[in-house]
């Protein structure tokens, strides 16, 4: 029987052979470099209702997931409902302001508009990480981008 160090080394080898990082995922992470948003303010996740719940919820239950992102004086409230088959993504920009929005859901890119009260809503299908970016008040470039979250 191998000693501790030998056994650990065998385990290391087993992992390398039987559960390596899929090459496709690494290529994806390299390509995702193009998804970076230069010069926009990053709105960090300040609140996620998932962290507040006491037991693991079933994904796609009736409970909406509520999130708040903060970027200095501005914040974005987000509500996620539904399942990958049909999901709702809605929220508002605070302080209220009209804005052009790009919603990134995995590889998908959806457009939306926040009205004068800063409110927006879209429906989508699919899964993947989610991030929104905003061009408020007719600005030509992205001003705010939300931290990526699991979808």
């Amino acid at each position, binding site marked *: 029987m191998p000693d501790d160090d030998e056994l650990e080394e065998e385990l290391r080898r087993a992992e390398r052979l*039987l559960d390596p*990082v*899929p090459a496709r995922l690494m290529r994806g992470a*390299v390509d*995702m470099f193009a998804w970076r948003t230069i010069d926009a303010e990053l709105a960090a996740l300040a609140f996620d209702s998932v962290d507040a719940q006491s037991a693991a919820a079933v*994904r796609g239950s009736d409970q909406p997931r509520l999130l708040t992102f903060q970027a200095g004086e501005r914040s974005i409230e987000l509500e996620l409902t539904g399942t990958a088959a049909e999901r709702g993504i809605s929220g508002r920009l605070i302080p209220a302001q009209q804005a052009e929005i790009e919603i990134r859901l995995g590889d998908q890119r959806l457009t939306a508009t926040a009205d004068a009260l800063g409110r927006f809503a879209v429906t989508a299908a699919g899964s993947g*990480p989610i991030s929104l970016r905003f061009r408020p008040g007719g600005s030509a470039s992205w001003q705010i981008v939300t931290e990526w979250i*699991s979808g």
Partner: protein
Amino acid sequence: MMVHPDDVGVLVRSAASGDKTAWTALVAHFSGLVWSIARAHRLGSADAEEVFQITWLRLIENVSRLKDPERVGAWLATTARNESVKVIRLGARTTITDSPYVLDRASDEESPENVVLESEEGSARMRRTRQLWSAFHQLPGRCQQLLRMLIASPPPSYADIAALLEIAIGSIGPTRGRCLQQLRALLAESEAADSPAHP
């Protein structure tokens, strides 16, 4: 491309200024670690994939904001750990271990070494490797988490592992010993079940 630990900070700063080659080197160097941590939480392929993606996406957004670029490995490990916990809270199914070959992904991602080994006399060795991997997944969750982090590439320091798992540094050595002993016992059981003397 081999990355020297001293170069990590340089790569982060280059990536922050838009250098895709530097970014690629970071992905190549730390992907094993991120994947190991996601899988250490017994996440299935789809959920581990999502954790992997989110972790790297977070770095893309933060690469110019890191307080300590040299410590990007620890940053990635912490992010992967937090996202794994979150994905479980979101209702991810952790993998069921009664069917160990479900976890054997060699069939859908043949590593070159795997292909060579299976065609050689090394098939007996490969069988033992699979037995070991299967036995590993019968260990308690805490053992799997700790061992998977210890074998990750590049491996987090004991201090980083202690922070990630919220355990005392001093407990890592003894826990590792106990877990490896359990693994040894499970391996012996499966080898005995294999032996011709077994009815």
